């Protein structure tokens, strides 16, 4: 008890700040009072929205001042602080300059760079916050209605119609927003180990039960080795491409580009939390091929381009039945057009 007497002089210099603390209390009380005016249902909805948005906002807030980033500066270790907050005072620290979040040590503050992406995001978010909250509330309302209807069990034709509309609510399915609120609760509970929590966050995410299941079921997925294409002739290259179910045409360079892009795509898919199927990868390849060709084919003549395109489509087709109907439709359309032209 001796120390309380000896620390009294230490207290006096900051008397001025006491007024703002009192102010804050008043604000807080009025905030609570305001809540009581609304119906209880309204409050839960408001709290839900606040909760979901605070999860989003926490990503846009500085962990030092707990406010939206003011001139966000990012570091090599991928942590961001306000320019002002990045001026850590480590005089009393043996560790020297290091990131407050992860402990990464710097040699100087010049290793921070301004993160204009986050700055723009905050600007956008602030100006659209109200509409985001509104959309969220609408989505929530729709979900609630959906839940109620599911519980009632009796699905009238009209109801199922409206269900369809609600499914496309701005915030997606029920599970998604549930996850968000659960996660925010989880975060608050663990705040105790602020530092530790940040460090292990990534691991936590990897251990989500859903992803775990996918992981174990895809255990056979392993990375493909990089290939030294320089040592290969065209025939070998074509075989490589065919092995992967890729089109084997074009110049040697084109084939190399295609194969190495696929290997990259495949290997990064192995690391993905929810890996895509091979069919999806091939579809991605098709997209790439289109983008790639539209660039390359600028000088090539049009006939050659259309030829290779049709060849490409053929080699990518996974389920021909899927396109049979579309094809029939096109023929039908062409016939109608022809008749029209004849009558005119």
């Amino acid at each position, binding site marked *: *008890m*001796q*120390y*309380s007497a*000896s*620390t009294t002089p*230490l*207290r006096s*210099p*900051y*008397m001025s*700040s*006491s007024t*703002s*603390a*009192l102010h*804050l209390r008043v*604000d*807080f009380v009025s905030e609570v009072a305001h809540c009581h005016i609304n119906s209880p249902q309204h409050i839960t909805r408001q709290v839900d929205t606040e909760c979901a948005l605070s999860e989003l906002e926490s990503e846009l807030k500085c*962990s*030092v*001042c*707990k*406010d939206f980033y003011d001139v966000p500066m990012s570091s090599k270790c991928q942590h961001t602080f306000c320019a*002002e*907050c990045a001026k*850590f*005072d480590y005089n*009393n*620290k*043996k*560790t020297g300059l290091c990131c*407050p*979040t992860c402990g990464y040590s710097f040699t100087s503050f010049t290793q921070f760079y301004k993160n204009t992406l986050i700055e723009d995001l905050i600007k956008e978010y602030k100006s659209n916050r109200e509409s985001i909250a509104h959309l969220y509330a609408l989505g929530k309302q729709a979900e609630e209605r959906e839940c109620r209807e599911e519980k009632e069990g009796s699905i009238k034709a009209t109801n199922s119609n409206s269900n369809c509309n609600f499914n496309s609510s701005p915030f997606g399915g029920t599970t998604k927003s549930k996850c968000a609120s659960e996660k925010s609760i989880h975060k*608050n*509970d663990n*705040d*105790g*180990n*602020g*530092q530790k929590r*940040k460090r292990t966050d990534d691991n936590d995410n990897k251990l989500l039960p859903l992803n775990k299941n996918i992981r174990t079921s895809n255990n056979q997925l392993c990375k493909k080795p990089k290939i030294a294409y320089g040592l290969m002739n065209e025939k070998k290259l074509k075989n490589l491409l065919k092995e992967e179910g890729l089109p084997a045409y074009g110049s040697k360079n084109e084939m190399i580009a295609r194969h190495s892009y696929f290997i990259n795509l495949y290997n990064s898919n192995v690391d993905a939390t929810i890996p895509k199927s091979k069919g999806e990868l091939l579809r991605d390849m098709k997209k790439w091929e289109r983008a790639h060709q539209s660039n390359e084919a600028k000088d090539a003549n049009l006939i050659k381009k259309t030829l290779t395109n049709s060849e490409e489509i053929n080699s990518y087709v996974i389920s021909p039945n899927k396109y049979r109907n579309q094809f029939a439709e096109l023929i039908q359309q062409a016939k109608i057009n022809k008749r029209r032209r004849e009558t005119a």
Partner: protein
Amino acid sequence: MSNALFTKRLSKELVDLKINPPVGIEVTEADTFKSWKLTLDGVDGTLYAGERFTLEFRFSPNYPMESPEVVFTGNIPIHPHIYSNGHICLNVLYNQWSPVLSVRSVCLSIQSMLSSCTCKEPPPDNNHYVKTAKASPKQTQWSFHDDSV
């Protein structure tokens, strides 16, 4: 400039603690930004269940760049890392402090430190320390060798 950060941070923390208080932790006195008092309840199922302690936080205008001074007052828990003068041997309060930590996270660390205790006894050097220690625990040269409790 640091004063702006100091008041902004503490007012945000206070609102957060009032609106969304952690279980067993309550702000009882926060009339100024120089010192706050919080009560800390012993967690059920631990050696401190049913006990209530008071923590005092004293902030310098360099907070959160500088750690707050944190001590127990009044009823002081008997714990191998807590001296009978209220000083707490906890690394995040001294050399492991980081500005991303907060009043909330410090309280939770102390709560978990109490909860994981298996034997209620004072630190072995308690008598000597209490006689020689300065008023502020931040002036003590702490050595953290035992992380098990």
